[in-house]
């Protein structure tokens, strides 16, 4: 598996040139045109390294994006390299210096950047993160091998992958085609058919509201509504801070305790809408207010 690098820059020429350079050196590259798109791709693809511009749609977009990425638990460890044409005299609300709260990047390189220097820097920071991709590759390979020769293995392998990653990353699904000789069309047909599989990274805590009949009769709808209000998200969505994901599920099988919700593995039964705020706050070290607004980034 190649290391994956995300390039976030609005300068398409620079992006193209850098992409070619990196690809020629055996990196896999994905790109984004602005901070928002970049952040989404970081969440979705979890690259091994991010190269980021400072001034895009607005002057400090790069810094804001870097802050958002480092504030998110699932992405905070990804090394960030900033490449910018901005000079110190541009007057930013922070010092144009790496490794500081206003600009949490590992290093700042000035445009135009010497290709050799860029490659060295990239190699340095990727290496610092250890050999995670290799390790993952081996682990995932083992999961697949376990099932490789068994009949009816596709769904079992997808289960293994979902357990491993928490979801089924796109490139992993694409690679299955090669490993199993099953067409990509079939793999996606299956992933998208079964509700158990998800293609996007999950929230940190999964809140499942049981929508079995018993729970429904005893007020699951109200619980659902209350949770949507508290978390400010719709069914299936993840709060902006990535902390909670809200799902409706079929019967959990605890009808005696209806209505129930399940947070991760723990079941809460005999609930009323009013109980929910307290339960949610246990999982959130933020104040109730920030949960309510669902805004952390």
């Amino acid at each position, binding site marked *: 598996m190649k290391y994956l690098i995300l390039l976030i820059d609005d300068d398409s020429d620079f992006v193209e040139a850098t992409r070619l350079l990196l690809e020629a050196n055996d990196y896999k590259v994905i790109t984004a045109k602005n901070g928002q798109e970049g952040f989404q791709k970081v969440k979705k693809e979890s690259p091994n390294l991010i190269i980021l511009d400072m001034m895009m749609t607005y002057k400090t977009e790069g810094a804001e994006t870097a802050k958002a990425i480092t504030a998110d638990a699932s992405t905070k460890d990804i090394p960030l390299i900033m490449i910018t044409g901005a000079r110190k005299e541009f007057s930013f609300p922070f010092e144009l210096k790496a490794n500081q709260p206003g600009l949490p990047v590992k290093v700042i390189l000035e445009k135009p950047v010497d290709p050799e220097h860029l490659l060295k820097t990239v190699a340095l920071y990727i290496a610092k993160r250890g050999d995670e991709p290799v390790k993952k590759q081996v682990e995932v390979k083992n999961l697949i091998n376990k099932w490789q020769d068994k009949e009816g293995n596709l769904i079992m392998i997808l289960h293994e992958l979902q357990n491993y990653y928490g979801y089924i990353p796109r490139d992993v699904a694409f690679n299955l085609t090669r490993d199993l000789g099953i067409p990509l069309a079939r793999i996606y047909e299956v992933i998208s058919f079964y509700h158990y599989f998800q293609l996007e990274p999950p929230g940190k805590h999964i809140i499942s509201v049981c929508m079995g009949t018993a729970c429904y009769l005893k007020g699951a709808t109200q619980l659902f509504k209350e949770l949507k209000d508290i978390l400010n998200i719709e069914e299936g969505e993840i709060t902006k801070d990535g902390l909670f994901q809200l799902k409706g599920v079929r019967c*959990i*099988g*605890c*009808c*005696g*305790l209806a209505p*129930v919700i399940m947070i991760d593995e723990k*079941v809460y*039964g005999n609930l009323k809408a009013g109980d929910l705020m307290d339960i949610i706050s246990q999982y959130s070290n933020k104040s109730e207010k920030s949960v309510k607004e669902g805004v952390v980034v």
Partner: protein
Amino acid sequence: MSKLTLDSFKNKSKKAKKNNTNFIKVGLSTCGIAAGADTVFNVLKEELKKKEINVPVLRCGCAGMCYAEPLVEVKIEGMPWIIYGKVNEDVALKIIRKHVARKQVINDYIFSIKDE
């Protein structure tokens, strides 16, 4: 583990055993666990250990009475064979301290009496 053969079943008496020994049994199925049965299971074991009482704590599946989970079945000689329901940590402790140790039945948590 040695393998069974057809012969292993020939000598089996109709009702293999009638276990008269003391035991405590906790329903550990999904519904029970959701209601807190695993905590109860651990509390019972620890308390018995602490009190140095030698009664086995067994595990079983769902007895059907979901409304009363967690269920704890207690069979102690000289006492009615009782299924306690809605057992929380507190009741679990009482089961050991009162029912098992002092042969006193606990009010309000009896959900079923089993026939001998």
